[in-house]
């Protein structure tokens, strides 16, 4: 079998290394291996089997055209270096199902964060409640919920890290699969809109009931507390609607390279990332230097809002310059 693999290696030496040629090589190797094993099983001697497999291999010339190698040469000489990362269908499907699950857990974490003050609101205004029971009924649930939420964020954040490259690199997927994804996105639009509408309605209802109770019973702390709890309860559910509906769409956008993940925006994102790393380090240096020199800590925080707004400006200028370069 080594003879066959080194033969294949030699054949591919003349071709550039692209995801397509790598895939072609792997597939051809698999086919040759199958054939080789079957020939051995038929009772052929090893070198006989190798000879047959190699004689039936064919030639790479006919593959070149299908692999689009001419096209790749052109883009490389044009200096764009846009080597796209090939994502197999299985990888993409794994990503979709994995991210779908992870975002459900993250949504649960957000829900816990939003709901965590509810016990405080509910029990905080009960007449004559002792401090000790306040701790047990209000504070402990609050910290437990936050702890669980943080755990969920960290755990699933780290797991999602693996797929971070999809947001940044240029992707290449099979045409048929892309079409399917587009259909999925299309067919999901109704559900996406419905989730957003439900979420927004819940928020509006929550705020309205809060305002109404606030106006009617503004002197009754217990009613106000309950009303605030209801508001948080509804907002929590609404946010879960937003996250789950948005996550599915976001994942499809990432794979389809649409919306925020279009090719142009990805290139820009890289540039802004680089500028940002320098920019924010500089901001920290300025802030610390200024603060230590003047010891005027009460005022120097102003660096941050100014830096934030300026960064927006820098990013916008980046976009403009990039856009002009392209045109």
């Amino acid at each position, binding site marked *: 079998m080594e003879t066959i693999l080194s033969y294949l290696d030699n054949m591919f030496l003349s071709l550039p290394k692209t995801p397509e040629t790598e895939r072609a090589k792997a597939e051809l190797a698999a086919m040759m291996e*199958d054939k080789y094993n079957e020939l051995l099983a038929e009772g052929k001697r090893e070198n006989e089997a190798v000879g047959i497999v190699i004689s039936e291999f*064919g030639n790479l010339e006919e*593959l070149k055209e*299908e692999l689009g190698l001419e096209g790749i040469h052109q883009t490389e000489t044009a200096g764009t270096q846009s080597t796209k990362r090939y994502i197999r269908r299985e990888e993409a499907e794994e990503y979709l199902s994995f991210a779908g699950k992870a975002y459900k857990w993250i949504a649960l974490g957000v829900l816990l964060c939003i709901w965590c003050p509810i016990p405080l609101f509910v029990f905080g205004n009960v007449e004559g409640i002792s401090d000790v029971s306040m701790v047990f009924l209000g504070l402990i649930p609050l910290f437990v919920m936050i702890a669980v939420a943080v755990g969920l964020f960290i755990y699933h954040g780290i797991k999602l890290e693996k797929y971070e490259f999809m947001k940044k690199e240029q992707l290449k997927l*099979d*045409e048929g699969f892309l079409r399917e994804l587009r259909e999925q996105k299309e067919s999901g639009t109704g559900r996406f809109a419905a989730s957003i509408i439900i979420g927004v309605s819940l928020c509006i209802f929550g705020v309205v009931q809060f305002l109404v109770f606030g106006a009617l019973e503004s002197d009754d702390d217990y009613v106000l507390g309950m009303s605030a709890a209801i508001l948080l309860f509804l907002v929590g559910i609404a946010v879960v609607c937003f996250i789950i509906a948005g996550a599915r769409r976001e994942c499809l956008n990432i794979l389809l390279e649409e919306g925020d993940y279009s090719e142009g925006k990805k290139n820009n994102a890289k540039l802004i990332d680089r500028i940002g790393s320098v920019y924010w380090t500089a901001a920290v240096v300025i802030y610390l230097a200024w603060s230590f020199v003047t010891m005027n800590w009460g005022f120097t925080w102003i660096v941050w809002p100014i830096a934030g707004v300026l960064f927006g400006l820098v990013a916008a200028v980046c976009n403009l310059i990039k856009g002009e370069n392209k045109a």
Partner: protein
Amino acid sequence: MRTVYREKGDDGLIGSDVMRGYNDLMILSLLMEQDSYGYEISKQIRQICSDKYVMKETTLYSAFTRLEKAGYIEGYFGTETNGKQRTYYRITPEGSSYYQEKCREWQLVKEVVEKFVKE
């Protein structure tokens, strides 16, 4: 002993350039019956035409890429009972209609060429 494959048709084997237009038809016809993977398809083709035509690996793989790009077949990762992971292919509805089209084309080609064949 297995016959070594030649380009000419003088030994009862078929040359690859003659078959060029109809490799797709053969592959699609096999995928119509069930999903399959590279070696299995090439083996079936060889068996069906009793060793008269052997599709070379590169021919088969370029056909896969071409058909996949055109949306006629789709590759997916599958595991066989013995645990080996392979790229399997399935035919799409577009692929089936392309197959029908190729069959009609072949009928026509056969009809035309037949008129000029004198035994």
